[in-house]
């Protein structure tokens, strides 16, 4: 089950023990980069979006949005490297992995949504849609980030 198993990797970060670092900060890093990526994809898409990326799956995703949003999220990730055991340049590939994971997550769950004939997963969060509309990217980015961090830093 994508949304539960994948999502459970986010709090699983709290079980990593990295000397001298708090794992809550690591989780905050993941959430900030994922959501920043989504927010800036939305902002760049609205401002400069011309080329549709996958019109059949997700009509609001554009190439300009992806590039602008991804780059912004990586810059934010590098700026927040103090939250993590990474150095500033190591934070860049980590943030990139999160952005890619988050983007694929959004795309996949969008495709599932279309195939079920719905626009949003729910109505719980005004403006966003449902919980899953916000969590879709975390579901895919969290396992990736968890295992990369565990492999390289513990």
């Amino acid at each position, binding site marked *: *089950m994508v*949304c*539960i*198993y994948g*999502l*459970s*990797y*986010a*709090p*699983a970060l*709290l*079980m990593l*023990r990295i*000397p*001298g670092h*708090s*794992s*809550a*900060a690591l*989780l*905050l890093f993941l*959430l*900030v980069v994922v959501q920043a990526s989504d927010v800036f994809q939305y902002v760049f898409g*609205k401002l400069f979006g011309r080329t549709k990326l996958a019109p059949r799956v997700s009509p609001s995703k554009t190439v300009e949005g992806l590039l602008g949003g991804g780059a912004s999220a990586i810059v934010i990730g590098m700026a*927040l490297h*103090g*939250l993590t055991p990474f150095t500033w340049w190591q934070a860049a590939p980590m943030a990139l992995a999160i952005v890619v994971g988050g983007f694929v997550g959004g795309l996949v769950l969008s495709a599932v*949504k279309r195939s*079920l004939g*719905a626009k949003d*997963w*729910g109505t*719980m*969060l*005004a*403006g*966003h849609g*449902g*919980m*899953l509309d*916000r*969590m879709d990217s975390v*579901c895919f980015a969290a396992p990736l980030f968890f295992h990369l961090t565990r492999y390289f830093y513990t």
Partner: protein
Amino acid sequence: MHSLPRVILLGLVRLVVGAYARFAAPLSPGTQRLYFANHTSHVDTLAILAALPPKLRVKVRPVAARDYWDAGGARRYIAQKLLNVVLIDRARTEGVDPLEPLRAALAAGDSLILFPEGTRGETATPGPFKSGLYRLANEFPAVDLVPAYLANLNRAMPKGRTIPVPLICRVGFGTPLPRIPDEPKEAFAERARDAVTAFAGAGMKHPLYETLGLIFLLLIIASLVGFALRLVKGRDNATVRNLNERIISWWVIIAVVGLALVCGTYVTIALFMVCAFLAFREFITLTPTRPGRSARIPRHFWNAPASCNGR
């Protein structure tokens, strides 16, 4: 000692005074330790316990003054039922060594939290240490002596206050104090005191709160931009209305997530469990289910967090 009231109490401590841990060197679970710290407030004991990772917390018993912690029902309940303290008599009686209960606890394999000043100080830097730490250190050579520095707690709950002020406090754990054979009492006390204050200055920043503050600042800016856009483009612009709705939702999301992260591991896991459940419910709502299959849904839900905890 993993009772729910204890977890709630330590969560509350983290919420009010932060109690963020900083480690000079990683502390592995399973080692018997004698933590010694500067003593400035009544929350010190709680703050050290809250700062320690749960795995290290298991066999740790704070040393507490009988005249304060054994007076009154609430204090006695917290001290004995929740914190499993070792009570020490500050009033000397002839022929009784006040360190005796501490020796018994150390002999039983417990770790202790000790405030070698013996009383709360008025200033951030500790006063002279009493000889108790020296004697215990000599009698139990296998126990690691870990210095801890409590920053800001003298501001959170100064002498005379009964309720702590919300304030970000930090607990720095230093490297274990090496033992020097035949060291005189005074030299040891001085060295132990220096080890505690060594953490007073640098290396004590905690980025979690600073980042959360930054995010709130960005939200305020985003809200102002949203408000300005509404003035410029008018109330009926669908995109702007959607943007503003999103920003308001962000306030709620970030407040909830930030609070959970500050409260600690268990609250955060609980929050993600709720989120996973809500996401799962949305997924099931949209997915066509056959009559026989729906019965299996709850089991899937409870299995995933269980496998996550076992990792």
